[in-house]
């Protein structure tokens, strides 16, 4: 009970401190980082307090301290799972899927015939449920990471394709006519005008695809996998009631997802520095 009281007091104090900081120093860089960090810490303290205060069974919800302890104890295991699922499955699938989507979008853009035919097919593939597709892909590509990469390809392909096709249409006639007056070839127009103009759209799709790739790779492991990988560990640790390990994997997935998204956002800023949305910052 004491811990619960402390947690509530901490929450109250931290909230008041945060609103005071936000009111006075909202334009300062350190405050912009400190306020959300303190909010996160407060949530963890509350969680710990509630679990201890109400004596919640670790089988239902483990305390953050138990999760941290389990995390520290099994870093080698978590790293192995991370390499298997994220580095091999998700990343390979992401690169293949996004690459294929970009190329397909350019091809679609060239041919009105494909515009009418291929987009609906892409739409159809995107609508396939992953739980139906994953077992089939496991059958085709085996149990290892290759089948997970295949699931990821299917998941990321469509959002990137749609965004890229829209991006290639982003230039208006005046701009393209101007290129023609320079007697620029299709290739020149593509590389110097249309692809750069498509970049903000493309990065939109790429950022959406980062989280989809992680979800796809993890969920696909539920349908057959070697004895490693984050999805494998989550599904088996639940069966063993090893909830701290499940939460450790969730923490790894959350960190990896944020990192992946952040890396794409950073890349976007480097590539589309000229775009008004980036210059405004």
């Amino acid at each position, binding site marked *: 009970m004491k811990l619960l009281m402390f947690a509530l007091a901490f929450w109250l104090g931290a909230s008041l401190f945060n609103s005071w900081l936000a009111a006075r120093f909202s334009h300062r860089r350190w405050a912009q980082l400190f306020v959300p960090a303190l909010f996160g810490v407060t949530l963890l303290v509350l969680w710990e307090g509630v679990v201890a205060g109400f004596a919640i*069974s*670790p*089988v*239902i919800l483990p305390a953050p301290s138990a999760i941290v302890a389990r995390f520290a104890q099994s870093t080698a295991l978590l790293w192995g799972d991370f390499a298997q699922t994220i580095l091999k499955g998700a990343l390979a699938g992401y690169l293949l899927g996004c690459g294929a989507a970009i190329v397909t979008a350019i091809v679609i853009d060239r041919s009105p015939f494909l515009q009418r035919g291929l987009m609906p097919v892409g739409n159809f593939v995107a609508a396939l449920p992953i739980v139906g597709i994953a*077992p089939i892909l*496991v*059958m085709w590509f*085996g*149990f290892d990471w290759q089948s997970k990469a295949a699931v990821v390809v299917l998941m990321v392909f469509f959002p990137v394709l749609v965004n890229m096709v829209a991006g290639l249409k982003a230039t208006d006639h005046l701009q393209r006519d101007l290129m023609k007056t320079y007697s620029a070839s299709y290739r020149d127009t593509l590389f110097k005008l249309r692809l750069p103009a498509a970049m903000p759209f493309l990065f939109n799709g790429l950022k959406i695809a980062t989280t989809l790739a992680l979800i796809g790779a993890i969920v696909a*492991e539920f*349908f*057959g*996998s*070697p*004895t490693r990988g984050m999805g*494998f560990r989550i*599904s*088996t640790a*639940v*069966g*063993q*009631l*090893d909830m701290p390990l499940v939460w450790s994997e969730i923490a790894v997935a959350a960190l990896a997802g944020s990192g992946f998204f952040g890396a794409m956002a950073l890349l976007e800023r480097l590539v589309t520095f000229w775009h008004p949305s980036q210059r405004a910052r």
Partner: protein
Amino acid sequence: MKKFLIGAALAALTAGSASAEEVKLQLKWVTQAQFAGYYVAQEKGFYDEEGLEVTIMPGGPDISPTQVMAGGGADVTVDWMPSALAAREKGLDLVNIAQPFKSSGMMLTCLKETGIKGPEDFKGKTLGVWFGGNEYPFLSWMATLGIPTDGSEGGVTVLKQGFNVDPLLQKQAACISTMTYNEYWQVIDAGLAPEDLVTFKYEDEGVATLEDGLYVMGDKLADPAFKAKMVKFVRASMKGWKYAEANPDEAAGIVLENDESGAQTETHQKRMMGEIAKLTAGSQGALDPADYERTVKILLGGGSDPVISKAPEGAYTLEITDEALK
């Protein structure tokens, strides 16, 4: 359906006055003849006779009975002892109150063409294993054989097998886990002849662990009312089991009627009931402490990675069956 409606109407009529005690039973797996005893007891009115109103909740690949129990979603659950004891060590106080299954139906089914003749040939092969609490018997067997399962030299490669037999048919695995009453027949139905297969029954290998038993939360057993309810439940359930054993075809029909998913077929269920009857034969419902000790010994003898690290205490009680079966 009609029966259900009439039952519901009767239940509604009597709801005011009757004091039918409610019991929620969480099955380990989907509706199939593996749980025929409970469905038969329900359908034949054995539960009604005891004044019980039993809700049978089917499980499935994404339902862990131990977790349902931990969340307070059921009064009693069907689980395998290795999974229950492992959960017990994780702090979930599961207690065995009855053991309708005497023998284990688990086996490893291998393709003959892979050249596997005995357990010593497993080394270097890929084996399919179910996880989610069903991996313990396999892991302890490999440990008793001294075969590492972590992918190191001289060991076996373990695949997390889905709940189908594809890895064997696709030759992605040399052997897969099967139950005598279920997956083995899926392999046969898929076109493989029994001569193409080599099977290793856990029972024959001396590593059989207790399967379907009835488990409740230990703290609830302190309540005499709950205990009395469980006595009635076990008595009626065992009546259902013995009836199912004696009338396998009728039992399979009852299971089919209760299969809301509509996924089961008549031939499959009749065959399954026949195999299940072999496993329940020899058990009147009471847990044989010798079987329990054997299971614990196998689970403890897990070499470097035992399923449980110390002998559990109070993991079973004979009080319920002593009372129910006298």
